[in-house]
């Protein structure tokens, strides 16, 4: 069934779902490959589908763009959901990034990726959004002065810790050789952040 070519309104609808920010008509057109005129027609049909009288999701034309949002008359349910929802558990990767910031921080995104051996930018972004990681300064020794990341009060609260000293010391977790190797990676020049 998904073999059918999608209709113009479907394409616009899908793109609207994956953006939290309003999208301009021209950005919608370029993502969907529709003409200006087709985009306009698609938006008109979506405005009908997502009208406040007939839907819990409404199409809004705000700040020079279009965006889906919840119908204000459903705000009570949304607020209750927010109160009751259990936060998504953190992934193993997220735990590792937090461990890097806790034990080796403040450090740059590049340093996190070097220590972990994988690009960690997406995980870092998610943790900043969740208020567990924050930018605490910039590294002036590295070109571009990238931000230095550290754990937040929110992180300490979530772990029930008063301060970073509450965690077991690093040398109780890894061997001296491993620690040396970690330090080597940390200082292996921020300029060649990418893997060879």
């Amino acid at each position: 069934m998904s073999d059918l070519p999608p209709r113009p309104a479907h394409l616009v609808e899908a793109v609207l779902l994956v953006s939290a920010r309003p999208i301009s008509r021209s950005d919608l057109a370029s993502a969907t490959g529709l003409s200006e005129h087709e985009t306009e027609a698609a938006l008109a049909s979506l405005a009908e589908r997502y009208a406040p009288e007939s839907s819990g999701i409404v199409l809004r034309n705000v700040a020079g763009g279009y965006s889906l949002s919840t119908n204000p008359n459903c705000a009570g349910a949304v607020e209750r959901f927010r109160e009751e929802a259990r936060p998504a558990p953190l992934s193993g990767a997220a735990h590792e990034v937090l461990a890097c910031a806790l034990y080796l921080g403040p450090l740059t995104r590049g340093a996190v990726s070097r220590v972990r051996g994988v690009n960690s930018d997406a995980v870092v972004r998610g943790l900043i959004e969740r208020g567990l990681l924050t930018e605490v300064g910039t590294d002036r020794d590295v070109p571009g002065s990238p931000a230095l990341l550290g754990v937040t009060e929110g992180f300490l609260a979530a772990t029930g810790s008063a301060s970073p000293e509450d965690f077991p010391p690093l040398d109780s977790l890894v061997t001296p050789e491993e620690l040396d190797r970690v330090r080597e990676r940390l200082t292996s020049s921020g300029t060649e952040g990418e893997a060879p």
Partner: protein
Amino acid sequence: MTFEPLGRSLSDFTVELDVYSGPYEWLLALILKDELEIFEVPLRELVESYLLSREPEAANGLERDTDFAGSAAALILLKSRTLSPALDAEAEGGEEEPLSPEELAGRLTEYMKIRRAAEHLRARFASNAGHYPSAHVVPPRPGRLHLRPERISLAARQAFSRLLEPPVRHLGPITVTLQQLAGLIRAALAGGPVSYESLTSEMDRLNRAVAFAAALSLAQEGSLKLSQTEPLGPLTLEPSG
């Protein structure tokens, strides 16, 4: 055996495969780092593409052939380990007692089921690809997230202790050349079709792998035909023509 020493002679050999295109040495590195699945590397195509790039007249031609045979044999060994895991008792490091045929059969059947399940999963992932979730997410109230401090320490241990290179000790030295084995195979074929199993019954694992590489080369040259009626089934070498 490590792959470092072959850097010079094969540095100009590049491959074009569905799963990878680029220098051959990088392909080896990717496979060793488990970043490319050996299963997905068509070894026969790899051998064919090497044979096409062969320069017997070059000063380092022999060295190059030997390096290729060595690394190709190691790849075949790796692949055979993946295909028949039960045959490798060293996977966990310790030297275990050889498995009885019954135990072997038990482990192989378990692995066969997992292989099938993996194929099923591949189809499931493919038919469900392209679903993207809503970005209109309301963040949960601050303070609702609880993290276990032990989990953070464990993550630290994991992140900081795995900077070791992948183990390649199980790849021992190669003591025969592809040419010697090719000669052996030709001699055996003089008496008609021969099974790979009986051909290699006296060999150790590495030589079996090199013999396989030799058989592939000969098949490519057209000197013999390889037939296998089903996956994991017996492999038969037949004189061509």
